[in-house]
């Protein structure tokens, strides 16, 4: 037992905030008593299976569903044509420019398919097996069209078109220019005057969020009401959007996110399958369930990242940075999803990182390709930006012959300069980059590793060592509604909370921020226990059901604690204020003479006269003896809309071994010190950092969604899409500095995305540091051993990978809807 858990016997209970409370959520999760959506069984429930396009781009010339209709157990087969009038378009809530082109996104394709895996029909059957069997019986004829797969070609001369009814493959052209915005100097002038300019092209490969729980939807019709259970991060947004898309009135629709097994942005979506499930339930009047397979998930749940970045940095010879110019191609995939265009635009304000530039210009083209749509994935725009700036700072250091950390130190915002308004117009709230960096270096054992690096170089060791940095910040706490409005986002960024004081003194906290692994039930209990002075155990946190938590904007963008937690705290303050009036009445004292500590009101200077919040709750329930003219309730709700983002920061340092004979890279040591503001629960914070690191490192080393020349996703199973296991990741040495965020009553900055945003460039910089003396200038992510070897032996960035999947499982690459049978081993077969 750690010391912090021992309750002291003093009068005032120990502060909950800051305690390493073990999570309340765990009890059900470690015993298998969890409520996953796919666990649900309802009387008469029908099962859906989706027939998906095996081709990337084609006109649908005909669909024959007659055989499937007659198959055993099949109740109905619906095509896009069957629902064309009622399915609307999957919504895009973020038109980032007034002239943004949105081609429209049917849930089931009607005339044309635009990516492999797009839904072309849905089977409704009495069992999952029957539905699956019938998928193979739907006969679809496709007239193939050329597939647009490469963003640079798609925006070059005379490209093929992803959508042939559009004029180009460009969805939007977004520009932020510091000179025009008045936040910086004229970028062209700064570059013209610069002594040193370094330009690079970086590739942010396409990733797949790969949450562990496959998506699942259950819809139950009850008269003209519908309840949808969905494995979603955003039940509130989903409800609004489903109402808009399908015409089911919002008040007739209840959306529940039960236990949700991870999201990472991947379940921040309104999916075709959710719309289809609702349409089928409405049409048939029966409960329906759709649960995806992993192959379906990898192929059709939205992807993330996928940018080509052209970055120019200008500085003087002494290493004072002057200007930054970013031109980005951002792959939208075939359609615009909920916030697809907003992802790169979120990054627009972060490319300058923690450095003081005079001038900054960002422009981004959103590009259509015949691939799965992209959207939010952990960090959403900020990892891309952080990668670019932290990589180009290293490249500039090399150009200048400077130590990469010295270059950073020379240019970063000093602790005494906060709050600091950047060239991108953001006002960074608080922090101390120097202290975090010093601590990280100590955690790593920096000097010793540098000495070892030197020894390995001198002895020409086949295994070389490198050290890479990422001194990052991010904008969190999405988001001030006014800022979202200025960026044309379709909703606000507030969050809602309500607190109900039950007659027995227990407390219900309702939050609009819907968790999927973050530990809201625990952290919110800690917040409320402190503010109300009630025991941690007496607080129950309710969430994830639009009829229980009617107002909310859900969980993404490291916003839960910063925005949602702030709403909880404010609601608690309101409860105390209401209770104070009741207490004054019961104690026959003036409100001004009351102290509130440890859950009790007492009259200042009158020992023994006190009343607890629990007693007040009971008195309120009875309402027998209540102050005149006061309604008998001390419940309260609050909506918090932040005025600014919060800006966590940190220094991440990676030591990397590179086997120059094979190209294999291996993390030797990883240390990071993050400043996420006030820490409510250190266990949860550490866990979030660990998980973020794993995903950020995985981008650097393992993961990539690869398409072949026909637009098939080659990495269509976990055999080829490499989510790392425990054996593939190092131990992490983590630490924190704490500079409170001034923008919310908790002082928290947000931690969910930090590790993921920061780690990727640290890892790549480390690998390059190991082999730069051998002539390597860049290695494209993920740093496969082959790429590292090619960069060492052939120069360049390691080049394209072959697109064929592994020959494992006899070439099981992409699950197509047809269930292709291929010649297998003679007999038997074991791995």
């Amino acid at each position: 037992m750690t010391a912090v858990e021992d309750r002291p016997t003093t009068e005032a209970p120990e502060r909950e905030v800051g305690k390493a409370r073990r999570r309340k959520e765990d009890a059900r999760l470690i015993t298998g008593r969890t409520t996953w959506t796919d666990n649900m069984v309802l009387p008469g429930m029908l099962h859906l299976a989706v027939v998906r396009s095996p081709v990337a781009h084609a006109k649908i010339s005909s669909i024959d569903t007659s055989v499937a209709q007659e198959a055993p157990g099949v109740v109905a087969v619906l095509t896009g044509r069957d629902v064309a009038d009622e399915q609307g378009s999957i919504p895009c809530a973020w038109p980032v420019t007034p002239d943004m082109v949105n081609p429209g996104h049917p849930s089931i394709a009607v005339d044309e398919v635009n990516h492999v895996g797009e839904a072309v029909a849905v089977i409704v059957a009495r069992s999952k097996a029957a539905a699956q069997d019938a998928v193979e019986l739907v006969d679809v004829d496709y007239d193939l069209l050329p597939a647009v797969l490469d963003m640079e070609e798609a925006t070059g001369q005379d490209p093929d078109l992803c959508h042939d009814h559009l004029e180009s493959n460009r969805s939007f052209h977004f520009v932020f220019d510091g000179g025009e915005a008045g936040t910086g100097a004229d970028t062209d002038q700064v570059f013209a005057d610069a002594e040193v300019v370094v330009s690079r092209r970086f590739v942010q490969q396409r990733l797949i969020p790969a949450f562990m729980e496959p998506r699942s939807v259950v819809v139950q019709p009850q008269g003209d009401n519908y309840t949808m259970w969905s494995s979603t991060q955003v039940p509130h947004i989903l409800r609004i959007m489903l109402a808009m898309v399908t015409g089911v009135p919002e008040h007739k629709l209840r959306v529940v996110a039960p236990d949700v097994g991870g999201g990472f942005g991947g379940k921040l979506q309104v999916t075709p399958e959710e719309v289809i499930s609702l349409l089928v339930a409405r049409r048939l009047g029966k409960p329906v369930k759709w649960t995806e397979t992993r192959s379906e998930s990898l192929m059709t749940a939205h992807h993330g990242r996928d940018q080509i970045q052209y970055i120019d940095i200008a500085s003087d010879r002494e290493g004072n940075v002057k200007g930054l110019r970013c031109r980005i191609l951002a792959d939208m995939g075939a359609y615009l999803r909920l916030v697809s265009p907003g992802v790169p635009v979120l990054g627009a304000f972060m490319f300058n990182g923690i450095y003081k530039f005079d001038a900054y210009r960002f422009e981004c083209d959103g590009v259509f390709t015949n691939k799965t749509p992209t959207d939010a994935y952990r960090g959403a725009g900020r990892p891309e930006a952080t990668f670019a700036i932290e990589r180009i700072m290293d490249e500039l250091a090399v150009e200048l012959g400077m130590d990469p950390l010295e270059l950073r130190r020379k240019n970063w915002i000093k602790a005494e300069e906060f709050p600091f308004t950047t060239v991108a117009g953001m006002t960074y709230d608080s922090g101390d980059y120097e202290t975090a960096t010093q601590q990280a270096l100590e955690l790593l054992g920096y000097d010793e590793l540098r000495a070892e690096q030197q020894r390995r170089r001198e002895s020409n060791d086949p295994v070389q060592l490198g050290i890479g940095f990422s001194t990052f910040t991010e904008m969190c706490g999405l988001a001030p509604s006014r800022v979202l409005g200025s960026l044309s986002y379709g909703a606000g960024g507030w969050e809602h909370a309500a607190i109900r004081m039950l007659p027995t003194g227990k407390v219900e906290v309702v939050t609009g921020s819907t968790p999927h692994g973050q530990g809201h039930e625990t952290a919110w209990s800690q917040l409320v226990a402190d503010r109300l002075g009630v025991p941690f155990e007496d607080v129950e946190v309710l969430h994830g059901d639009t009829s229980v938590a009617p107002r909310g904007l859900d969980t993404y963008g490291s916003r839960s604690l910063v925005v949602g937690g702030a709403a909880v705290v404010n609601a608690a303050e309101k409860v105390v204020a209401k209770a104070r009036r009741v207490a004054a009445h019961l104690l026959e004292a003036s409100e001004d003479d009351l102290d509130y500590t440890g859950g009790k009101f007492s009259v200042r200077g009158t020992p023994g006269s006190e009343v607890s919040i629990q007693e007040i709750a009971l008195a309120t329930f009875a309402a027998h003896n209540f102050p005149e003219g006061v309604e008998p309730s001390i419940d309260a709700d609050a909506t918090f809309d932040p005025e600014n983002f919060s800006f966590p920061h940190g220094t991440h340092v990676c030591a990397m071994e590179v086997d120059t004979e094979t190209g294999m890279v291996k993390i030797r040591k990883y240390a990071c010190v993050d400043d996420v503001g006030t820490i409510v629960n250190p266990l949860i914070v550490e866990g979030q950092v660990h998980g973020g690191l794993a995903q950020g490192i995985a981008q650097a080393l393992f993961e990539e969604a690869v398409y072949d020349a026909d637009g098939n996703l080659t990495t269509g199973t976990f055999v080829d899409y490499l989510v790392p296991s425990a054996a593939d990741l190092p131990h992490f040495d983590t630490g924190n500095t704490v500079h409170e965020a001034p923008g919310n009553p908790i002082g928290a900055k947000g931690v969910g995305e930090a590790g993921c945003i920061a780690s990727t460039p640290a890892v790549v910089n480390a690998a390059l540091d190991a082999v730069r003396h051998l002539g390597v200038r860049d290695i494209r992510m993920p740093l496969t051993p082959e790429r590292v070897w090619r960069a060492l032996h052939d120069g360049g960035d390691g080049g394209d990978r072959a697109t064929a999947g592994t020959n494992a499982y006899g070439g099981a690459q992409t699950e197509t809807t047809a269930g292709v049978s291929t010649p297998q081993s003679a007999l038997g077969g074991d791995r």
Partner: protein
Amino acid sequence: MTQINVRVDGVTYTDDVEPRTLLVHYLREQLGKVGTVIGCDTSNCGACTVHLDGSAVKSCTVLAVQADGGEVTTIEGLAPQGSLHPVQKAFHEMHGLQCGYCTPGMIMASVDLLKENPDPSDTEVREGIEGNLCRCTGYQNIVRAVQQAAGEMRGATNGHVSAADVDIAAAPHVVGQS
């Protein structure tokens, strides 16, 4: 349909199943043992791990008919109702889970590992659970949890290791990795 007799979490069941029914589907859909979940189609993620006749297996890669006559333990039967197995306790204590989807499989694999190696090093834990994917935790607290449970199960004088102690004791996994 083929008739099977299986003992699951201490209860004997006789059921007719289609031969193609996967053990995990039998557990979830016919027995309501929904604590065991499905995370992939290719036997990579380990979310569906249960014990079959005393060994950890991926129940999505076993046919229900193959379990005929066998004994299955799922996360729901790992400890008597109302109590926790030391590995379950340690996952809670060490914050070895976040969303919890991989957790049942991760716990079942860890229990199997500890049966064979009661005092695994950091590296041995990591390799021992290489067949289970977690997307939330970065595994570090899972490794701590398994080591803490190992200590408790060995009856070490202080089986209750604090997170900080384990952290220091745990060698970076790169040491000794080939």
